[in-house]
């Protein structure tokens, strides 16, 4: 193995990429070659370094110096001064203060507790050696060589880990059901169809540290007796597909996937399944339909996937973040895990505040942190000095909460965090306009097989099109309220059941704003057209 005297980690997160990180990386490699340093200095692409507003950024080891807002023009100076002469380029050193621009990034904040994200921005996500050096695959070795499958399940149950995709079902219990179910083949499916607007945490895990998911899946396979896994990644996430596929290939080469894993005789392999653009496929039964090559239409439950899942066989379906927790629990034990978070919600949760906050990004905190901790302490508060109006919790299918919820705790006992999205809205925004957009989303994404959802989402959008055009009447509110109740009761899956939740909760909070639109025919925020020309729903 080649030894390098210096490593340069280039941030390739979304935000840095937008600021030209790829060009900087290219220039670095070219300059290093030109100076004959290619055998001494290695350039590594890593995930998001977590420097909100720092533009294209890189860290040079062994010194651990971070340079921010680097441009291609700065590269020769960095190579000449830092790498050749050993003098740091003071003017580019990251001072820890974020530039006053809005960036997607993950500034590691004091209240953060990084378990799942600990490697992100630290290791090269394409290198299995770096993952292993950080303790990766130790949990798998421990499970395969020192634990029986039922001991793994017992450990998972004792940890109290619950699903991180929004529904919060106990993971150990799900595995137990699948383990006890009869079936010729059993499957582990990782739900990476992250489609709920406002959520982008799974993307970061897949692009920044994909081996965690693989390790979690193999352990799950061992626990329930499955030999085959699928990672269902939404088609829009090209980079996630590429990084995950590469990680799988490397793990297979090293004998950590495939036949006779670590020489224990246990076989397990994983295939990446690329989705093709359908929000509803995030619903587990629709996802399975999709893997089987059909339209992503949800199925009646029960039976549930742990007994009747993929191809009718027992199947465990877990979210990316859930599976990423598994190696940590197995390596450090359930007792360690139960020491984090609250009684009903153990461990950490990754949140993705976005919208009108200063530093949208991905932050990991123990359950029980408050909404204020995340929005103000981590995401920098509301941008442009505005006041907070409300937060759509979890995404369009979640509830709307107002300013009075800021000190509520994010956990099972208090405010349910859903999958972790926090869509923050400032005082200048119109709630009716935002809800029109939410209605548009569900209308577009309804799969159309059950009437309450297909017709309900359409009528809901019609109402909002009227209201934002000043063509509604106050009695409409009762009609939509009753329609939403019907959808909640009678829709086949979560899409229709939750499509009207944001409307109901926003009406409770902002009744005056609805009244202004419907009775006084004015939009207080001045956002809606109110021109009496309601857009038709095609």
């Amino acid at each position: 193995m080649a030894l390098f005297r210096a490593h340069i980690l280039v941030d390739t997160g979304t935000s840095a990429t937008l600021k030209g990180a790829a060009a900087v990386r290219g220039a670095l490699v070219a300059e290093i070659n030109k100076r004959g340093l290619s055998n001494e200095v290695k350039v590594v692409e890593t995930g998001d370094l977590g420097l909100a507003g720092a533009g294209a950024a890189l860290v040079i080891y062994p010194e651990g110096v971070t340079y921010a807002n680097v441009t291609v023009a700065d590269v020769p100076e960095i190579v000449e001064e830092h790498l050749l002469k050993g003098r740091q380029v003071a003017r580019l050193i990251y001072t820890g203060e974020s530039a006053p621009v809005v960036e997607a990034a993950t500034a590691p904040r004091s209240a953060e507790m990084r378990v799942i994200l600990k490697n992100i921005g630290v290791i090269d996500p394409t290198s299995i050696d770096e993952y292993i050096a950080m303790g990766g695959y130790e949990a798998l070795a421990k499970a395969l060589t020192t634990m029986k499958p039922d001991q793994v399940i017992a450990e998972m149950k004792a940890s109290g880990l619950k699903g991180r995709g929004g529904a919060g079902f106990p993971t150990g219990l799900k595995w137990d059901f699948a383990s006890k179910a009869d079936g010729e083949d059993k499957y582990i499916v990782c739900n990476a169809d992250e489609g709920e607007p406002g959520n982008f945490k799974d993307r970061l895990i897949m692009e920044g540290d994909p081996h965690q998911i693989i390790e979690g899946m193999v352990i799950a396979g061992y626990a329930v007796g499955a030999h085959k896994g699928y990672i269902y990644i939404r088609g829009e996430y090209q980079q996630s597909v590429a990084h995950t596929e590469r990680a799988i290939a490397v793990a297979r080469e090293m004998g950590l996937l495939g036949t006779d894993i670590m020489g224990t005789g246990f076989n397990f392999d994983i295939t990446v399944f690329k989705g093709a653009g359908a929000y509803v496929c995030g619903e587990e039964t629709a996802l399975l339909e999709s893997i089987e090559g059909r339209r992503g239409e949800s199925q009646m439950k029960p039976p549930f996937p742990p007994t009747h899942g993929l191809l009718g066989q027992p199947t465990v379906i877990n979210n990316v973040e859930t599976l990423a927790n598994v190696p940590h629990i197995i390596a450090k034990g359930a007792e360690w895990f139960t020491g984090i978070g609250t009684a009903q919600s153990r461990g950490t949760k990754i949140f993705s505040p976005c919208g009108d906050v200063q530093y949208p990004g991905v932050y990991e905190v123990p359950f029980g942190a408050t909404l204020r901790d995340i929005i103000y302490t981590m995401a920098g508060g509301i941008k442009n000095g505005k006041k907070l109006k409300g937060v759509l919790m979890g995404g369009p299918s979640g509830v709307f909460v107002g300013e009075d919820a800021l000190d509520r705790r994010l956990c099972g006992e208090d405010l349910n965090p859903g999958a972790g999205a926090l869509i923050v809205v400032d005082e200048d925004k119109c709630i009716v306009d935002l809800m029109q957009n939410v209605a548009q989303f569900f209308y577009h994404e309804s799969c159309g097989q059950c009437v309450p959802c297909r017709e309900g989402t359409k009528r809901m959008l019609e109402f909002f099109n009227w209201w934002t055009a000043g063509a509604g009447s106050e009695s409409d509110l009762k009609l939509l309220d009753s329609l939403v109740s019907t959808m909640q009761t009678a829709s086949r899956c979560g899409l229709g059941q939750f499509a009207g939740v944001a409307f109901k909760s926003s009406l409770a909070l902002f009744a005056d704003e609805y009244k202004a639109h419907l009775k006084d025919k004015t939009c207080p925020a001045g956002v809606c057209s109110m021109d009496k020309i309601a857009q038709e729903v095609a």
Partner: protein
Amino acid sequence: MGSCDSKGCVACEAAVVEIVEKCGRCETNLIPILHELQASMGYISNEAMETVAAELGVPVGRVHGTATFYSLFYLKPHGKNIIRLCDSPPCHIEGSKAIRDAVAKAIGVGPGEITADGNFTFETVSCMGLCGVAPAIMINEDVYGNLTPEAIPSILAKYAACSCCKEGK
């Protein structure tokens, strides 16, 4: 390689059969097959769907039903470059409407349309997981975020049609 659009083209049919072979001749591989078809032919034609159905031994409606369900599958030719504008709530509150108008003004067509020279397909899509840099668009596989309407013309200029295409050839 592109589809030649002619019915009964032997070469196209052979190419489809080859893709089915590569992905595995099984109904459960339909979505990977459609991805591959689109990647090699640009879109999924009726003829291609008929061939796939025959190869897999399923009714054409079964293939058609799946292909039409997913928004990333194109059943008609699309522009050389695809502009996807996110119109989900996080981008919406950060001003995606103004971005939509700026794109429409720059290329002369609205969402759901193709420019006359065939250079751009413009569509609004649901969340692409770029909420941290809202409002965002993707052009082909390139991401653009933290957008302002003013930034649009220079971004689109990178994808401008060459002069021969502008003449409609």
